[in-house]
């Protein structure tokens, strides 16, 4: 038999299980143009819907006249709020416990807001129809500044003010002003104030983490098809959480959940943009019900940037206290969070500011307090986690800037300041001052490895020389050494404290082993480029001893996949990956009984070995998993049901806490403001590594999105609420020309509570990358007195910084 001559190493290699850089199974179709994205879906008689959008950021709508539009050839219907109201669908719930207009109900709150939905035979006719819809607007004062929003008499949301003028509580407690959404606190206020008041050293700094957008290359869209014969609604779409979308559609439409099938086909990148529920989905469903035909809605790029799911927009003020030697004693953080016209943040219900309370970072800070005020303004709703777990990017940016500012105040090296404040290896599991329990970490080892790898001391010496040369007029380029050390919090999350719209944030995997020893596994998550079909098969291969190449992974069809909360916040590996391992172990447990029966020994006398069960002490006696699979279907085994299937719903006991150490070396041309990234070193510790090739790919991508955010990408508004960066002409997406080669490295500190020790990696490089790029810019000017300047550090802003520091004199 072939198996008998194969070495154990060969058998391990044959599985292509965990730890190997297995090539991706997705790539065959994508490289040949055979992906199946939502806009590739075509159904008989399919119509196309598109929106009339508001040109104003704040206005009353006095009249909508669709008469002319309905005369346009190819236009079949024009839906307005008045049409949706009888169905109760003119407003919809948001993920944050607020409600949002599906179509403008008497007023608009942001530029680009959906006013009417034109349904036509094709996109061109829909565009003609949109032109012909007449809308009368009465402009209202526009509020784009959240601080002004809390002072002004201008009320954005009249629906949230009682008739007597009082302000009812919101979904997250008392509100203090009509434009105030919530105040959320974590930590100990008085104790923190006391520590700060008595500090040897105290630094205060304010920073604005600007509004930006995930901007996946594929925009959002859907196809809704109501089959009136069998009463079943099918909804294909760019959904990062298809099961949650099914439940939401059922709740708001009244269609029973078993009559709704939601399918996420291939998704062209998500990065958080495709988590939420958008008016386009609701209108497409209604239009399909009204017309009896399938209706497709696909955003164009401007729609995408202007209206769906922005990220960040946090105004943060911090105070950090320390001893003279640099030991941090306390941290205070206040955030004014600009949520736009509706609170549509995608956060777990109990966390209206996401996991912002991870803002003590990687440091052993005994006392801390965080307060976040959510505010309405005349901007688009959203507040999604753009390639980060919930608001973790903001938190890590905040602490990594505060540490730098403290280093300046103390006159200390910022790397050394970090080192003396890191949580020590032996302190894990570590209970942080703002409530989280970090599972595992070895920060000092990672930091030392990073600093040694880049020759940190050498870099500092070079930088000092550069400053001298600059002052002597020998160069016009400054050198910045950007540092960041981040701790992520991902894998949401434990059902006890994590839910979205009441749905617990567990995830799931269901496995069927076929008689001939291949398998299909379905999960509650959905890949948007992360390569789940490749990596989840690797987890399973190692767990059940069948080759990854013999395992199909399927996600995204709610009729077939088990229920799960989807893919975002780096939760797929920590949660669904755990479910996969656990379901695999159930398969293995049954396989053990079958093997024991076939080998005529007791269950406990066989043990698992790579791809087989062997009789303990007699390795020549074994049954391969392939043989066991066949036996499960062709033999009557006393006391054991036929078949070999398992399902696991995994409720994680804790979050996972990946971490990493990044160093960026940057040259800045003082006269043009152009930064040149000379080197970027990224050490990531994501626990057990499933596929190193894919991990590195995730790191490259996350760093590039971080580069974009730190160095130029923003959703900017003028005073009238006009979006100034609504196309790719103005909204910065880096090209191959602007992006450096990254050096990747790793340490491995497994999560102690995860079945395979994996922590998740997709978002780490973004979370750690943004402060690293930003710190490099700041560091270049440190010798000239710069303490804080806000992102995005585009050429103009960098030039301005240099100018304000007198470097052009």
């Amino acid at each position: 038999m072939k198996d008998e001559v194969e070495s154990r190493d060969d058998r391990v290699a044959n599985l292509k299980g965990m730890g190997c850089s297995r090539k991706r199974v997705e790539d065959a179709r994508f490289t040949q143009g055979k992906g199946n994205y939502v806009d590739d879906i075509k159904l008989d008689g399919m119509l196309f819907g598109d929106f009339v959008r508001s040109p104003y950021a704040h206005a009353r709508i006095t009249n909508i006249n669709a008469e002319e539009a309905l005369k346009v050839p190819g236009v079949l219907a024009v839906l307005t709020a008045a049409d949706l109201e009888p169905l109760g669908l003119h407003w919809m719930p948001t993920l944050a416990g607020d409600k949002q207009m599906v179509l403008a109900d008497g007023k608009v709150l942001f530029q680009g807001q959906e006013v009417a939905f034109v349904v036509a035979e094709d996109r061109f006719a829909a565009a003609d129809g949109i032109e012909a819809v007449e809308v009368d607007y009465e402009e209202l004062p526009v509020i784009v500044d959240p601080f002004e929003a809390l002072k002004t008499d201008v009320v954005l949301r009249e629906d949230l003010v009682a008739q007597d003028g009082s302000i009812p509580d919101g979904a997250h407690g008392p509100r203090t002003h009509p434009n105030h959404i919530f105040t959320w606190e974590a930590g100990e206020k008085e104790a923190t104030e006391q520590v700060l008041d008595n500090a040897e050293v105290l630094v205060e700094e304010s920073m604005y983490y600007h509004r930006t957008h995930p901007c996946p290359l594929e925009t959002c869209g859907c196809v809704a098809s109501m089959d009136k014969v069998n009463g079943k609604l099918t909804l294909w779409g760019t959904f990062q959480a298809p099961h949650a979308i099914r439940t939401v559609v059922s709740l708001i439409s009244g269609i029973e959940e078993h009559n709704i099938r939601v399918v996420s086909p291939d998704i062209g990148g998500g990065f958080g943009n495709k988590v939420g529920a958008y008016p386009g989905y609701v209108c497409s469903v209604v239009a399909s019900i009204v017309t009896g035909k399938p209706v497709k809605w696909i955003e164009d790029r401007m729609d995408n940037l202007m209206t769906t799911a922005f990220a960040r927009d946090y105004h943060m003020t911090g105070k950090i206290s320390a001893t003279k030697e640099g030991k941090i004693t306390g941290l205070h953080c206040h955030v004014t969070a600009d949520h736009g016209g509706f609170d549509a943040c995608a956060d777990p219900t109990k966390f209206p500011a996401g996991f912002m309370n991870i803002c003590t970072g990687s440091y052993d800070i005994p006392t801390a307090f965080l307060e976040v005020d959510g505010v309405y303004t005349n901007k688009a709703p959203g507040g999604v986690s753009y390639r980060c777990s919930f608001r973790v990017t903001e938190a890590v940016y905040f602490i990594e800037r505060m540490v730098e500012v403290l280093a300046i105040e103390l006159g200390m090296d910022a790397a050394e300041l970090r080192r003396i404040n890191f949580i020590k290896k032996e302190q894990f599991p570590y209970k942080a001052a703002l409530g989280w329990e970090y599972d595992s970490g070895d920060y000092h080892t990672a930091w030392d490895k990073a600093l040694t790898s880049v020759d940190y001391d050498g870099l500092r010496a070079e930088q000092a020389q550069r400053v001298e040369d600059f002052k002597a007029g020998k160069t016009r380029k400054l050198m910045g050494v950007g540092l960041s050390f981040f701790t992520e919090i991902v894998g949401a999350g434990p059902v006890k404290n994590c839910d979205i719209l009441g749905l617990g944030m567990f995830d799931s995997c269901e496995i069927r082993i076929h008689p001939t020893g291949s398998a299909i596994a379905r999960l509650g998550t959905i890949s948007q480029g992360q390569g789940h079909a490749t990596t989840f098969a690797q987890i399973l291969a190692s767990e059940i001893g069948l080759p990854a190449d013999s395992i199909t992974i399927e996600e995204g069809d709610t009729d077939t996949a088990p229920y799960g909360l989807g893919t975002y916040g780096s939760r797929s590996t920590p949660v669904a990956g755990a479910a996969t391992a656990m379901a695999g172990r159930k398969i293995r447990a049954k396989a053990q009984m079958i093997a024991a029966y076939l080998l005529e020994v007791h269950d406990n006398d066989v043990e698992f070995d790579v791809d087989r069960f062997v009789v303990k002490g007699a390795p020549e006696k074994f049954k391969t998993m392939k043989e066991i699979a066949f036996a499960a279907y062709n033999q009557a085994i006393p006391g054991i049901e036929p078949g070999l299937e398992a399902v696991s719903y995994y409720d994680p006991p804790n979050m996972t806490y990946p971490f990493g150490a990044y160093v960026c070396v940057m040259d800045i041309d003082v006269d043009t403001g152009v930064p040149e990234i000379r080197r970027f070193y990224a050490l990531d510790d994501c626990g057990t590594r499933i596929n190193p090739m894919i991990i590195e790919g995730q790191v490259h991508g996350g760093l590039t999105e971080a580069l974009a955010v730190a160095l130029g990408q923003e959703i900017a508004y003028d005073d009238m609420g006009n979006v100034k960066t609504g196309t790719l002409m103005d909204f910065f997406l880096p090209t191959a020309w602007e992006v450096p080669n990254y050096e990747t490295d790793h340490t491995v500190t497994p999560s102690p509570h995860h079945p395979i020790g994996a922590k998740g990696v997709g978002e780490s490089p973004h979370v750690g990358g943004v402060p690293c790029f930003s710190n490099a810019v700041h560091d270049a000017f440190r010798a000239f007195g710069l303490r804080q300047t806000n992102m995005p550090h585009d050429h103009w802003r960098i030039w301005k910084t240099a100018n304000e520091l007198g470097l052009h004199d």
Partner: protein
Amino acid sequence: MSKKMHIKLNVNGKDEEFLAEPRELLIYTLRERLNITGPHIGCETSHCGACTVTIDGKSVKSCTMFAAQADGKEITTIEGIGTPDSLHPLQEAFKEHHGLQCGYCTPGMITRATKLLEENPNPSEEDIRFGMAGNLCRCTGYQNIVKSILAAAAEMNAAKEAAE
């Protein structure tokens, strides 16, 4: 609506003939009329390159070209590059070097790269980064795309040498 125009073109070796409005964009002709869905729409302002095709030997972003402008021309899309049994070296290299993640930019990226390597069979990394700057990718950070194209160039040059 304007009078329809009579348009003939050749896509991936197949002649096509149809009537279209003057405003019909080539990407719609390909995707909606001819069911060639490899080229994608990412921006409709010719920034992202997801819709890149080859027209008479040049890389063109088909979202900002009218079908009427392509009248009489030869067009190659990703569907005309390699077959399942015999992939183009670029397709092999993108798979081998993890040159893609979500796959949305990939057809345009590979289509553009075929022209880049025709124009410059021995590109440096810098040549590739400059020559591919019209194609955006949000997932990979380009590092493995550059690696894939370098590998494909080496592979194609080796094959050419072997043939000579």
